[in-house]
C-alpha cells in the first residue's frame, strides 16, 4: 500500500540488460567490432534459424537447472555458491552409473542415473549445509571451496582409474547406449535434459508458490528469526533447501553427461554452476523468471560463440556480459528496494534486497 511505484520486475530486468549492453559496448569496441552489429549477432541471429534456436535450448538446459538450484537455495536464505561442484558430482555419478546399466532398458536406466546424480549432488551439498545449520559456519566459503575440490576429483578420476584405456585420453569410458538421453528433435542435439529442466522448474514453482513447505522456505529466507518465532523449523528448512538445491545441480551434471558428452570429460562444465547464479538473479529468484533467463543466456552464449567466428569478438565476452548483468540486476533491485522501503518499517536481513524481489515476482 505504501510501496512507492515498485517498477515492475520485467521492466527492471530489461533495464538491467540494456544497461549491461551499454557497458559491454566498451570491450566490443576494443575488439574492433560494431556493438550494434554484435548485439544483433548475440541476441537476434541465434533465434533466426531452427538449428541455432535448438542450440539455444541445448545451451540453456544446464543453466536452467543450476539456476533453479541456486534460486531455491537463495530463497531459503542459504547462499549455495557450490552448484558448480554439485553439478560435477552429478556428472561423475552419471558417468559411473551410465557404464553399468547397459543391460537395463532406458525406462529404468535413465531414472536410476538421474536419481544417482541427484543423490551425488545432494551429498556434495550436505557437509556445508550441516556445518551451517549445526555450527553456524558460513556456507558461502565452504560451498565455494568445494568447487575446486570437485574439479580435482573429476581430474583425478580422469587421470587415474577412469582414463580411457584405449586412447589414453583423460576421458571416462562411454556410457551405455541405453543410458543416453534420447534427442527430442531429429538431427539436433536437443535432448531429454531440456524437458527434465522444464519439469524441474514447474515442480519447483509449484512447491514454492503453492505448498506449505514452499511458504515455510520463503518465510525462512525472508526472516529466519520471524520464521522460527512462528514455529517453523528453520534448520530443517535450510537443510532441506540446500539438499534439494544440490540435487538439482547434480541433475544438471547428469543431463550434460547423458545428453551431450556421453562420458565424463574435464571440460564438462564451463562454469555452469556460476552461470546458474546469474540466471537465478536475472530471473529474480522466481521460477518462471529463471526459465526465461536461462533461455536468454543460452541465446547470448550461442550468439557469442558464433560472433567469435563472424565478427572476431572473443567468445569470452559471454562471461563478461554475465558478470555485468549480475551486477546491474542486483544494483537495480537494491535501488528499487530502497525507494520502496518505508523509512520506519522493518529493515530486511542482508538477503532482503534479493528475496523480496522474488516475493514481488512470485
Amino acid at each position: 500500500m505504501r510501496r512507492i511505484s515498485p517498477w515492475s520486475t520485467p521492466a527492471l530486468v530489461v533495464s538491467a540488460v540494456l544497461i549491461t549492453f551499454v557497458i559491454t559496448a566498451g570491450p566490443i569496441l576494443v575488439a574492433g567490432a560494431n556493438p550494434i552489429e554484435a548485439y544483433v549477432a548475440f541476441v537476434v541471429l541465434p533465434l533466426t534459424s531452427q538449428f541455432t534456436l535448438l542450440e539455444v535450448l541445448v545451451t540453456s538446459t544446464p543453466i536452467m537447472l543450476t539456476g533453479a538450484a541456486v534460486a531455491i537455495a537463495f530463497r531459503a536464505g542459504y547462499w549455495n555458491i557450490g552448484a558448480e561442484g554439485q553439478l560435477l558430482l552429478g556428472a561423475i555419478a552419471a558417468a559411473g552409473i551410465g557404464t553399468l546399466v547397459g543391460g537395463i532398458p532406458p525406462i529404468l536406466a535413465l531414472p536410476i542415473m538421474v536419481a544417482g546424480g541427484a543423490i551425488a549432488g545432494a551429498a556434495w551439498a550436505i557437509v556445508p549445509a550441516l556445518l551451517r545449520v549445526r555450527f553456524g559456519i558460513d556456507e558461502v566459503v565452504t560451498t565455494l571451496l568445494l568447487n575446486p575440490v570437485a574439479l580435482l576429483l573429476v581430474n583425478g578420476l580422469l587421470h587415474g582409474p577412469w582414463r580411457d584405456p584405449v586412447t589414453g585420453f583423460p576421458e571416462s569410458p562411454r556410457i551405455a547406449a541405453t543410458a543416453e538421453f534420447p534427442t527430442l528433435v531429429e538431427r539436433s542435439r536437443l535432448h531429454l535434459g531440456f524437458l527434465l529442466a522444464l519439469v524441474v522448474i514447474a515442480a519447483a514453482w509449484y512447491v514454492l508458490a503453492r505448498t506449505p513447505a514452499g511458504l515455510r522456505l520463503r518465510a525462512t529466507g525472508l526472516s529466519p528469526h520471524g520464521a522460527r518465532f512462528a514455529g517453523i523449523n528453520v534448520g530443517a528448512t535450510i537443510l532441506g533447501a540446500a539438499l534439494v538445491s544440490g540435487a538439482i545441480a547434480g541433475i544438471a551434471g547428469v543431463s550434460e553427461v547423458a545428453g551431450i558428452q556421453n562420458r565424463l570429460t574435464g571440460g564438462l562444465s564451463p562454469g555452469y554452476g556460476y552461470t546458474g547464479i546469474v540466471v537465478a538473479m536475472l530471473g529474480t529468484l522466481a521460477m518462471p523468471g529463471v526459465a526465461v533467463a536461462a533461455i536468454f543466456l543460452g541465446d547470448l552464449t550461442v550468439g557469442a560463440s558464433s560472433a567469435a567466428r563472424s565478427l572476431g569478438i572473443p567468445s569470452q565476452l559471454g562471461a563478461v556480459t554475465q558478470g555485468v548483468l549480475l551486477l546491474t540486476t542486483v544494483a537495480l533491485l537494491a535501488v528499487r528496494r530502497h525507494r520502496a522501503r518505508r523509512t520506519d518499517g522493518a529493515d530486511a536481513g542482508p538477503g532482503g534486497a534479493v528475496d523480496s524481489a522474488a516475493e514481488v515476482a512470485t
Partner: protein
Amino acid sequence: MTFLVDLLAATLRNATPLVYGTVGETYAERSGVLNLGIEGTMYAGAFTGFAVAWVTGSPLAGLLAAIMVGILAGAIMALMTVTFGANQHVSGIGLTIGLIGLSEFANRLIFQGGELQRIQPMPTVNPLAGAGLLGGIFDQYGLTWVAFLVVVPAAWWVLQRSSFGLEIRAVGENPEAADAAGVDVARTRYLALIIGGALMAIGGAFFTLALLGSFTLDIIAGRGWVCVALVIFGRWRIGRGVIGALLFSLIFSLQFRLRILPEFAALPFEVLLALPYLVIIGALALSGRNVAYPGAYLKPYRRS
C-alpha cells in the same frame, strides 16, 4: 635437511599471494563488506600484471598496472555495496565472473590464444645467501619480503593503531555510531575496499610476475576463496590470518613434495592437491563455530 629448507622456503613463497589476499579481504570485511570479488580481483591482477610486463618489458610496470586494476575492482565493489546498497554476496560473485571474463577476453585479444608467452620473472633476493644451508629459506622474491616485512606490520598498525583503522573498525562494527561521531561511513568503506582490492591484485600478480613468469587460465584456482576462509579462520585479525596463510601454504607445499615420493606414486596427484582445501574446511569446522562476525557484516548503511 634440504627437504626441510626447501619446504620452508616454498611455504613462505606460496603463502605470499595468500597473505596479500587475506590482508586485503580483512580490510574489506572489517569495514563491514564481504568482498567475494577477491577471486576475480586476484585473477585480473595476475593477468594485467603479466600483460603489461610483457608489453613494456618491466615487471614493475606490470605490478603498478595490477595495483590500478585492484583499486578499480575495489571501487566497483564499493559502488555496488556502499552506494547502491546491493547484496554483497551476489555483487562479489558478479565482480569475480566479470573480471575473470574480462581478463580472458583481453588475453584472447592480446595473445590470440597462441603459444604460452613468458616474461623474465622478478628476481629473488637473499640477504642471508652466505648463511649456509639455512640461508636457503630466505631466498625469496621481493614481493614476499615486502609482504611479510612491510605489508603485514603496516596493515596491522594502520588497522589497530591509527585513527583511520579505528574508523574502519567502527564503520564495520556500528556504522550508526561512527556516523554520529562524524565519520564518513561511505568514504571509509570505499577506502577500505580500494586498499583491499589493491592488495588482492598484488597477490594475484605475484603468480605471473614472480612465481611463474607466465599467465595460464584458471591461474588463481580458488585461492581467493581460500583467503575468504582464512579471514574467518583468523577471526578478522591480521596476525591470525597470516598464521592461517602460512599453515595452508605449509600443507600445500608439503603435498607438492609428497607427490614425487615413491610411496605416493599410486595416488593421483589431484587427491593431494585437494588436501589443502579440505584441511581449511576442516579448520573452519573446528575453529569457525559461532565466531563473532563484525557487527555490521553484510549490512548496507543508509541514513533515513
